[in-house]
């Protein structure tokens, strides 16, 4: 590990970030306190609006980042993420489809999101598999194709749904946390916490998987089975989050890279640190989205605008190392 200090700083960063974020918003903090107790409005805003939103944001940031890091390792490809692989688009399509077909059973949203997110991943991986291996370029190209397919399917759903539902469906393509509530958090948490837990315990194994199929097998790994487990867990976690937040681009790609440069590549440390860093960074980004202007900015716009230049810098700086 590069630095133990960096690691622990990152690991505990979500705590101050979450506390500070509770104070961010239209309704100013100093008005919340009447003498020493919270007013009724204030406690409603704090506990039923801000807190679930912040927690959902943190969960989404952690999930996308951990999924990104895990996918990068299993496919031994530093340029992969849920968004680039088409997983996000597949899950968003599934969520929109559930909304269109079964508008009154919200628990179906994460289920369909998972089914289509996983189909997208499997499709991308089988398209990319050439001669028993994944090359960096083919995985990206396959991801582009799969993402395009599911974006098109999502447009069809948009096209045939009525104006009332349309706004709900557009939401998934833009991404955002303004709809967050305790109900949403409960909808996302089971799947994403399960997926994250599996990836957390599996994390050292990701090192071995990233050595490539042949070498992993030489070290006794059942490559097919273990990669499938990683893909399922990552998809489960992402699809659950995307069901309630829509597509949040770039986080899953950029966070693992930043964290790798701070704590090193060993997934034993990379995974927990990515979770914490992803949580902090997305909560802070959402703070900006809801306080910068008098209206809310969709979060994907901000993550893209911030992450793309960083990614270009990254590509220039270390691209050569990864061929």
């Amino acid at each position, binding site marked *: 590990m590069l630095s133990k200090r960096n690691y622990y700083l990152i690991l505990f960063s979500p705590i101050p970030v979450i506390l500070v974020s509770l104070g961010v918003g239209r309704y100013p903090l100093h008005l919340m306190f009447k003498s020493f107790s919270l007013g009724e409005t204030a406690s409603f805003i704090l506990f039923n609006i801000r807190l679930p939103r912040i927690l959902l944001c943190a969960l989404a940031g952690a999930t996308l980042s951990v999924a990104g890091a895990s996918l990068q390792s299993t496919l031994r490809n530093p340029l992969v993420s849920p968004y680039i692989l088409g997983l996000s688009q597949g899950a968003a399509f599934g969520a929109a489809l559930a909304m269109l077909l079964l508008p009154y059973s919200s628990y179906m949203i994460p289920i369909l999101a998972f089914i289509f997110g996983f189909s997208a991943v499997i499709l991308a991986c089988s398209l990319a598999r050439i001669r028993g291996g994944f090359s960096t370029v083919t995985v990206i190209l396959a991801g582009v194709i799969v993402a395009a397919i599911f974006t098109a399917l999502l447009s069809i759903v948009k096209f045939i749904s009525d104006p009332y539902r349309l706004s709900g469906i557009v939401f998934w393509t833009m991404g955002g946390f303004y709809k967050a509530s305790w109900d949403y958090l409960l909808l996302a948490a089971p799947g994403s916490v399960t997926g994250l837990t599996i990836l957390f315990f599996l994390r050292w194994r990701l090192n071995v998987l990233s050595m*490539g199929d042949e070498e992993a*097998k*030489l070290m*006794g790994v*059942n490559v097919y089975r273990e990669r499938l487990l990683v893909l399922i867990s990552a998809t489960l976690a992402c699809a659950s989050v995307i069901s309630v937040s829509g597509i949040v681009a770039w986080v899953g790609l950029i966070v693992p890279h930043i964290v790798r440069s701070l704590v090193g*590549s060993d997934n034993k440390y990379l995974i927990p640190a990515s979770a914490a860093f992803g949580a902090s960074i997305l909560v802070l980004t959402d703070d900006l989205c809801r306080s910068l202007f008098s209206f809310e900015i969709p979060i994907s716009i901000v993550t893209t605008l911030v992450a793309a230049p960083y990614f270009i810098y990254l590509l220039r700086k270390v691209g050569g190392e990864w061929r």
Partner: protein
Amino acid sequence: MALIVVKDVHFAYDDSKFVLRGVNLEVKLGEVVTLLGPNGSGKTTLLRCIYKVLKPRIGCIYIDGKNILDLTSREIAKVISGVPQEHETTFPYRVIDVVVMGKTPFLDLFSAPSIKDYKVAKNILEKLGKAELAERPYTQISGGERQLVLIARALMQNPRVMLLDEPTKHLDIVNKMKVLSIIKKLAVEKRLAVLMTLHDPNEAIMFSDKIVLVKEGKVICSISSEELTAESLEKVYGMPFRLVKDGNVKTILPVLEYTV
């Protein structure tokens, strides 16, 4: 008793052409066996069949008396370790993190190496004279150093059989001798069976007990290293060789027919 037995193995990547055509081979405990043959003769393919990355079309492979088809990758990895011919680097792991991966076959799906394992890994690096590399990113060391790191990882598996595909590739002459001596010493001391490929007949003579000459997917002959002659090499490579003796040191030199 033979630890590896290869019986009549035929293999083809695609249906058009057999790359291995009836290979028979035995490697015993404490024995170093070298595969020697031209590029594309099927050496790498044979090693891949033995560690079950490829499945023979015909024939069987036994490890310690058990057919490898009845063993899982994990059971095989507890007995056999190896260094493939090519390694594509990925993320900049520290050298020590790469070496400790050799512990994988002894760990559950959800566990990681212990502090003790990291110490063992460090000891192995020390034995190879590369302790100072431990903290370096393994993507930023030389090709020869990386080769040593991968050999260290193979030793970390605490194997009974090592399959080494061109272990001296990328190494300078001193490190070649060093690595081959270590391999030879391990074979004797730890009663390891070693099956490796080399391209230099002199290295093969110096460090192996048995030399297996391979050509076009067939074993031409399997001889002790003293028995290697210029004629047998000529048969395999299709080019004349000359044997030079200096005391009891035997050197094989190619005879150049081509002039520039």
